[in-house]
């Protein structure tokens, strides 16, 4: 509870900072939300020429597009740059500041640039999701509740994946390109898994789980609940890995904590 209160306080402080640069912030926000609208247009054009992609009809694709937009917008609002900043913290020798706080350092680092106002960027993907759901029909409250749980698990998997990559900075210092690569892979999340060959499906389900992150919530929504269990398993493995690797990384790290940037 103390950790949650702390993170909420962090959100409020960041919100105050952002309000100083309102016009730039609003344009940035519009820019962040426009990608999902542009891909909505892209799929609209595709579906004016075809009825379905494999056995995924148009509505399911919009549910997928909306879901991936929601997950990545949540990440972008709450965790963006957090894990990516480990490189500079290690390089500058300032990570001690985070290790001294009475909250778990990995969470502190992950959420340190959180921005409540960027949660507004959830609106367009949510509208696309609702559009998809209303066309799909067959609404079940249980499916929807499990879908929401699945979305949150996906968000945590994506965030912890960044954190896991960030831990490599303890050993290699400069790992920023890895986050760009992960961001590029996230681009594949808007596609249904079935377009990829089996080997790539497995790779993007369990090695770099971009398709698991975006596709599984949709599959849960359609009533395939066992995908939720797989998601929980992947989340558990990631938490375990970070629990084991963070102390190891901290031991490798050397610094005097006296750097003044």
């Amino acid at each position, binding site marked *: 509870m103390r950790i949650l209160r702390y993170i909420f306080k962090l959100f409020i402080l960041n919100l105050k900072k952002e309000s100083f640069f309102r016009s730039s912030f609003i*344009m940035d926000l*519009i820019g962040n939300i426009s990608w999902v609208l542009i891909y909505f247009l892209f799929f609209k054009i595709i579906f004016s020429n075809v009825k379905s*992609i494999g056995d995924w009809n148009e509505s399911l694709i919009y549910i997928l597009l909306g879901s991936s937009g929601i997950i990545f917008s949540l990440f972008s609002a709450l965790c963006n740059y957090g894990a990516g900043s480990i490189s500079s913290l290690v390089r500058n020798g300032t990570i001690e500041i985070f290790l001294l706080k009475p909250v778990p350092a990995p969470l502190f680092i992950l959420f340190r640039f959180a921005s409540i106002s960027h949660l507004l960027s959830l609106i367009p993907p949510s509208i696309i999701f609702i559009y998809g759901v209303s066309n799909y029909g067959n609404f079940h409250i249980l499916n929807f509740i499990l879908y929401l749980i699945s979305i949150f698990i996906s968000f945590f998997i994506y965030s912890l994946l960044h954190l896991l990559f960030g831990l490599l900075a303890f050993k290699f210092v400069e790992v920023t390109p890895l986050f760009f690569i992960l961001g590029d892979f996230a681009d594949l999340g808007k596609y249904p898994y079935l377009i990829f060959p089996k080997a790539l499906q497995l790779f993007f389900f369990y090695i770099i789980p971009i398709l698991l992150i975006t596709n599984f919530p949709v599959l849960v929504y359609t009533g395939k609940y066992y995908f939720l269990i797989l998601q929980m398993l992947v989340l558990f493995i990631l938490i375990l890995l970070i629990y084991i690797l963070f102390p190891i990384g901290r031991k490798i790290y050397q610094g005097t904590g006296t750097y003044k940037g």
Partner: protein
Amino acid sequence: MRKYIKTMLIEIKLVFNYRFSVMWNSTMLVVPLLGYTFLFKKLFSQDFSFGDYELNTIFTYYFWALFLYTIVPAYAWSDMADNIESGSICYFLSKPYSFLLHYYFQILGASILWIILNFLPLIPFILFFHKLFIFPNLKDLLIGILFFIISYNLALIFGFILQLTTFYIGKPYGYFSIYGWIIGLLGGEIIPVDILPKFFNHLPFRFLYFIPSKGFMGKLENIHILILEGFLYIIIFGFILYLLWKNGLKKYTTFGG
């Protein structure tokens, strides 16, 4: 001119130091291309039509459009906005040295290496998908290169205009995403422009990725008119850039960085 060439050569050396980082960035090109390839492979295996495109033409189109997207400097460099905002632009203004030409040649130097380093990781990709890729003949290659030169200069002028707005509204970083999506959509990086409604086929943005890609594919008609149109856009936007620069300097106040 020799001093600007020197600037370009220094930049080539600098970028070469970061050659592996630049090559890593090629995922920006390979990953979306992979997505488009498998999506359209699946679609064309069904009852699907997409304008005049077939699987190999759409693959080749996205190959060129995404390649151009990664190498055409449509944002110019954010150093320009930083220099204007911090006042460091005075270091340029107090010397017989053009601020805009400095960045033109610096970016040109970097671009030469970007082109080479981004193309290298594509070679195994082309070899793997060689059945889908339409290799250009010499004539199409030359036409493609000609339109690439137009695209490159037009993109750089757009980028300079974006950066020079710092004189008027402060750093334009907040506008970058919107600008990026506009040129991505209307330039032909996301969807070929000829698939969009007719109106979009007359905008200058299509010269950024769509027209050069079509040039490499040998699918352009009325090439002479397109060349004229391209140069006309360069002149028009070049003039807008000139006005922004002149008026920006007039109203600019700083202590000198």
